[in-house]
């Protein structure tokens, strides 16, 4: 469903993604792991072109997003098309990025109203059902500042889901949370995975990755060094760098 082919990305001289090829099937959960600075977040952000990669192609159900091959060369697509494609890709950020001047319910309903032409009444119904799903029905009228980190992140997930995306991207969704709040966010993500949402996740929560992922992708220095089912990656990885990385992370846990 998502097909990433030959994606390359540099920040100036620094070549951060090297010939990335990756496929994510419908309803599958892919967890991207790897040492810090390996390009995990950058790869994830390329999928909705928040990070502008220079070369290669990413398609969602066959439709390219961000860049498109034209005359054998990869060129950026017009902004209007990009905006439309982005509606189909939900994104959850490490820093939540809720809109502080809008109530919790408005955070969720504004995009469907503005971009999909949904009526306020319809959007409110949708927003309330999503708030119920993430367990925050009683918070609909408050401003985000009064929420805890875990609650903010659950609202952010509901906001992304309100656009009814085909895939959800999670960029270290629990990394800025206090330990006791990590569970509530992972619980929502787990439920989403069970419903069959296609998901790409960057996380350091290895136990969660092992439990939820269909495929683990290991990134090192901008390259995918291996990918496979969690059982394989966590017990008998092929690459020594994977072993080294997992040893470090698991030791820290």
């Amino acid at each position: 469903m998502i097909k990433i082919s030959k994606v390359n990305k540099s920040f100036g001289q620094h070549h951060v993604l090297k010939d990335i090829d990756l496929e994510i099937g419908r309803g599958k959960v892919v967890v991207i792991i790897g040492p810090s600075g390996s390009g995990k977040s950058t790869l994830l952000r390329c999928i909705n072109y928040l990070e502008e990669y220079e070369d290669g192609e990413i398609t969602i159900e066959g439709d390219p997003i961000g860049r498109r091959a034209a005359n054998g060369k990869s060129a950026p697509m017009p902004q209007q098309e990009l905006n439309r494609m982005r509606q189909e890709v939900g994104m959850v950020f490490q820093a939540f990025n809720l809109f502080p001047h809008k109530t919790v319910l408005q955070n969720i309903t504004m995009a469907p109203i503005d971009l999909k032409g949904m009526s306020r009444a319809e959007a409110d119904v949708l927003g309330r059902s999503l708030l119920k799903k993430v367990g925050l029905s009683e918070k609909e009228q408050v401003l985000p500042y009064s929420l805890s980190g875990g609650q903010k992140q659950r609202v952010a997930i509901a906001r992304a889901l309100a656009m009814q995306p085909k895939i959800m991207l999670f960029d270290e969704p629990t990394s800025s949370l206090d330990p006791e709040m990590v569970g509530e966010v992972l619980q929502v993500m787990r439920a989403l995975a069970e419903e069959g949402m296609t998901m790409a996740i960057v996380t350091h929560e290895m136990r969660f990755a092992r439990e939820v992922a269909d495929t683990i992708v290991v990134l090192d220095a901008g390259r995918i060094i291996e990918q496979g089912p969690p059982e394989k990656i966590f017990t008998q990885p092929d690459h020594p760098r994977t072993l080294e990385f997992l040893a470090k992370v698991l030791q820290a846990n």
Partner: protein
Amino acid sequence: MTFDFSVIFLGRNLNFLLHGLSLTIVYSCAGFFLSLIIGTIIAFGQISRFAPLRWLSLFYLSWFRATPLLVQLFLLYYGLPIVFGIDTVAWFSGVIALGMYSGAYSSQIVRGAVQSIDRGQMEAGRSLGYSYMQTMVKIIVPQAILRMLAPLTNEFISLTKNSSLLSTITVVELFRQANILIADTYRTLEFLLAVSMMYYILNNVIGALGIYLEKRFRTGGELQ
């Protein structure tokens, strides 16, 4: 020396001053409105991806911020008729000059506030499918307005005080009315103190308005 403040209330003197005050208010509001429009254009010009717009904005800023308002006022009032043969109405030149001068300052207030908003807000908007422009209008600017309020209140007050310079190009406004009355009555300090008081009250009303608006726009996350 003795003060005789009763001269202010003599005959139609007070009405004469209040008429000046009302015109000062009108010119200041018009100038500030223009300042906000110019300020917004220059601010977004300065952060534009399009280089010529950036240069143009920087040039505007460098000129209007680095030359005295009084000189700009004279240039506009005397210069336009000489160079272009345009017949200038004094108050109109005055308002334009105030707006253009203040616009340079406003632009930096707008730009500073917009750029102080976390880039995560832009990314969140774009990731939902909003365009750059939509994200600016719906998400960034409403948050930036709160941060603009205090310095824009300063700018409005500053502009109101600067409007007294319009008297030098024959515009009828508060300070000019005071000078006329002083010439008539020789009661210099009485009238200067009276107009000082009027400016003082007017500007503090603007100050209070600014604080009121700040309270209304708060989102709760601000340092108290």
